[in-house]
């Protein structure tokens, strides 16, 4: 009996040790699995984070570059505009001073004839006004106008730069042929001419 009791004792402990080993082994397996899954998840998380970072970096790069390029384009446009406006100012000055040049009479005739033709009446009223224009040269023009045309010489420059305004006797219809009006009508062409001459575009 003592022998079988000893065997039972041994058996009980042996079973317990086996069970214990199984529990530990299972825990070690589970532990290994936890670490592997953790590594894999961590790798996925890192990849996701770096992938989003890559997009963010591209967005930052574009933002920095595009804002600077926009600013530089604006600087270029402002400089071009400044240059064109400077030339236009010089043009206005030259036109304003035309009365002192040998181009004056021919120009005046052309402006007057264009304005009279535009109004389309035999009894047009023509008003001229230029800075520093000699009264005599204006009067001599008056004598060359078609019969019936009323000639008025203004002492001040029409629209600041000078020019001609023709109208019908009732003043219902008029044609402004001042330099200012001509500049406005030719606005696009002038800008193109100046721009292409300066910048070669």
């Amino acid at each position, binding site marked *: *009996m*003592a022998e079988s*009791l000893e065997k039972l*004792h041994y058996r*009980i*402990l042996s079973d*317990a*040790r086996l*069970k*214990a*080993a199984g*529990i*530990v082994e*299972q*825990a*070690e397996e*589970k*532990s290994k699995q*936890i*670490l592997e*899954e*953790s*590594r894999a*998840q961590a790798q996925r*998380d*890192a990849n996701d*984070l*770096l992938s989003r*970072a*890559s997009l*963010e*970096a*591209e967005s*930052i*790069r574009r933002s*920095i*570059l595009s804002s*600077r390029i926009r600013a*530089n384009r604006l*600087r*270029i446009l402002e400089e*071009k505009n400044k240059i064109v406006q*400077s*030339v*236009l100012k*010089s*043009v206005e000055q*030259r*036109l304003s001073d035309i009365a002192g040049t040998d181009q004056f009479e021919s*120009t005046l005739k052309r402006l007057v004839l264009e304005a009279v033709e535009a109004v389309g009446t035999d009894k047009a009223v023509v008003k001229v006004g230029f800075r520093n224009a000699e009264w005599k040269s204006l009067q001599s023009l008056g004598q060359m106008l078609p019969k019936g045309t009323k000639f008025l010489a203004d002492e001040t420059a029409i629209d600041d730069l000078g020019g001609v305004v023709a109208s019908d006797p009732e003043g219902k219809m008029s044609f402004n042929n001042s*330099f200012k009006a*001509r500049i406005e009508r*030719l606005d696009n*062409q*002038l800008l193109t*001419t*100046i721009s292409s*001459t*300066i*910048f070669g575009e």
Partner: protein
Amino acid sequence: MSGIEAVRKIVETEGQAKQIVEDAKLKAEEILARASEEAQKFRQTSTAEAEERKAQMLRETRERAEADARSSDMETDSLLENYKKLFEDRKEVAAKKAVELVLGG
């Protein structure tokens, strides 16, 4: 050995066996806890490394973009200088052409 003594011995042995299993369970819990802790640490380290790489990537991108932007500034400066020269060289011709256009257009 008496019957009572045999039963006592078996009960004692059962107690030992139970203790062995309990110890194993405790050890298993410790193993799993250590694994969880290690996994947590690993994730934290991995995330920290990735965050660091992200910060570096963004810093380098920003620096490169700033350098490119400075290059664009310099190109623009050079272009503007050229415009000033062109203006000085061609302003007379441009004004003359524009005046002719206004007078004869």
